[in-house]
């Protein structure tokens, strides 16, 4: 009994850490620290998956933990750093619609709304408070990632927002371990992101969608020579 309580408390503490990393993703401006935060966030999620695996021994959870470490904590951050290195940009200072503080306030409201909405529904699926907590944090993380996509202008930061969203979905899915194809789904998402990142690397898209048109003219020769 005490073991279960300890276990669920550890997981809850990790949830709070995950939420903290999401808040940092929203507010940080330096790209390299954004990548590090993302990597740490993925580590947290992998650890949560591992703890859940130790608790109920579902192989899917182990697979998810390994996959998360391999792709999201190691490979994708490495690719992101490589892109940053080749593009020579250090900071993403451009925000639209919302300032970082505004985004934080909005995400606090979002977490609250998600909690209100889901607590009445999800309790009917399972009375487990840990599941409810995980689901709420997962969906909040997804929405906070979407906030990053909307408020940042550089594609590389938008991608970080997308990856945060994916982590949120992953967190949400962890609590229903026997979900079919979830590992395949995660692999497909990671592959797509890697392809997109590869495309960005290959075509040198370092600026925002809006400014890209003007900038591209200087790339013309680069395209022809290839």
């Amino acid at each position, binding site marked *: 009994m005490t073991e279960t309580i300890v276990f669920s408390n550890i997981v809850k503490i990790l949830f709070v850490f995950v939420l903290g990393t999401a808040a940092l993703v929203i507010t940080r401006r330096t790209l390299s620290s954004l990548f590090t935060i993302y990597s740490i966030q993925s580590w947290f999620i992998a650890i949560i998956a591992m703890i859940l695996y130790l608790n109920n021994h579902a192989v899917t959870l182990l697979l998810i933990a390994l996959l998360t470490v391999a792709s999201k904590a190691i490979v994708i951050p490495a690719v992101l750093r490589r892109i940053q290195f080749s593009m020579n940009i250090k900071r993403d200072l451009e925000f639209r619609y919302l300032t970082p503080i505004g985004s934080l306030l909005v995400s606090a409201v979002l977490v609250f709304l998600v909690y209100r909405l889901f607590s009445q*529904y999800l309790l*009917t*699926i*399972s009375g487990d408070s840990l599941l409810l907590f995980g689901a709420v944090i*997962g*969906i909040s993380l*997804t929405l906070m990632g*979407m906030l990053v*996509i909307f408020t940042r202008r550089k*594609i590389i930061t*938008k991608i970080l927002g*997308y990856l945060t*969203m*994916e982590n949120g*979905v992953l967190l*949400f*899915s962890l609590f*229903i371990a*026997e*979900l*079919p*194809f*979830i590992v*395949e*789904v995660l692999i*497909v*998402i990671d*592959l*797509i992101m890697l*392809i*997109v990142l590869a*495309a*960005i690397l290959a*075509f040198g*898209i370092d600026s925002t*969608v809006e400014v*890209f*048109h003007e900038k*591209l003219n200087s*790339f*013309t020769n680069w*395209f022809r020579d290839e």
Partner: protein
Amino acid sequence: MDLILFAYIAAGVLILSLMGRSLPEASGRNSFLNTLTIIHSAIYLIISTVILVFVPSGTFYFNRYLFVDSLVTYEIVIASAIFLLSACYARGYVRSLLEAGEIKARELRLFYIAFNLLLLTVIFAFLCNNLALFWILLELTTILSAVLIVTLNAKENILAALKYVFTASTAMLFSIIGLIVLFAVTSRAAGSGTLNWDVLMREANILPPQLFTLSFIFIFIGFAAKAGIVPFHMWLPQAHAKAPSVISVLLSAVLLNIGAYGILRMYAVAHKTTSSHIISIVLIVFGILSIAVAALSMLPRGNVKKLIAFSSIEHMGLIMVGIGIGTPVAIFWVLFHTLAHALVKTQLFFSAGILHQQYGSNQFDEMKNALTLQPLASWGLITGSIAIIGVPLFPVFLSKLNILTQLAGYSLPALLIVLVLFLVVAGAFAAILIRTFTQKSESKYRTYRTSASMTIPMLVLFAAILLLGVYFPDGLHRILDNIVDGLGF
């Protein structure tokens, strides 16, 4: 059956990727790869026709992950027919792109591999019995079609493709949340969780309505993005306009259908729960919103492909409205509309492709003396436009009329709004067509010679559209009746 399928698919992809490298000359390589693609699509058309005729509805394969029912066969016959027509058209079209330098010789292989893989993925997406598997294949169609958009050697294409992948994938993440909720709901209600269509259909009546509605809305976001429903349509106009015309056809006439198909399936499940009423309202609201945004965006268009792209949004909106009404008659005509829309859209984009080759532009203002220079494409565009706005004697008329009649029974104000919006659409098409085909120029143009591989698919489409407008085959009637029955409406 399925083993044969797999063996041949693996072999086909292998051959495609390995060969063609040995042919150094670009046009020879194009012909070779294209011939393989045509054969590939033709085999699919034959297989789907065989399935349509011989395989009984409700056959399962691969541990019940794949299945065949009348709706699946109907969709795969349409998809493979459109793919075959596009493959033929691509022969001449891609050659012109090569000559114009718009596509590089070394990208031909990538183009055809992505084309064939897209065909494969689309067919399997329709055959999926499992929602999670369907989701995966849907994501793969996004990435493959994005690759096809990028093969055109223009920089805006990269942006259009990125926007497409981003919008669609972001929305699809919400679908995954919906799927997880749905799985949890079924495991709670029925003892064991499932995402299989057939089990969902069977157990729909015991699902708790509120939670099901919640999961439906999440799933809807992703599928709606794939179907180009407002407000998740942001990717669509740009992607359709920038893609090579033959790919615009696939995006509009095949890929949008998969999203709509997913929504139709989900609605069929919803129809058996007590939450069907609220879900109907959601679908109809989003449908009318799509029609409205598309209609109002069409008026100021100067780009022929953007105009056709917005028309796709409008028609997907109509399909949503039809699904939302949810009567057997409405579903029947929604299915017919899927076919009619696919045929007419193919015709329109084929014509736009030829006109683009002639003028090197998609702008209406550039298209001077079009009727004398490119009579076939011009008439294709004219009849296509007349057909797509739903003029009598064309197939879209039948489905539009019947869906609208059903809408009248549902809500009169909604009908009036939609009618006014359709008037705006018709006005936009008429204004643009009259302006385009009456402008004359003294300057001499070099006539672009349309190859037979491009004219034949267009003539086939002409015949099909004209025939379907005045003659409703009994066989088709039976098939559509079966589907409506099978979906439980």
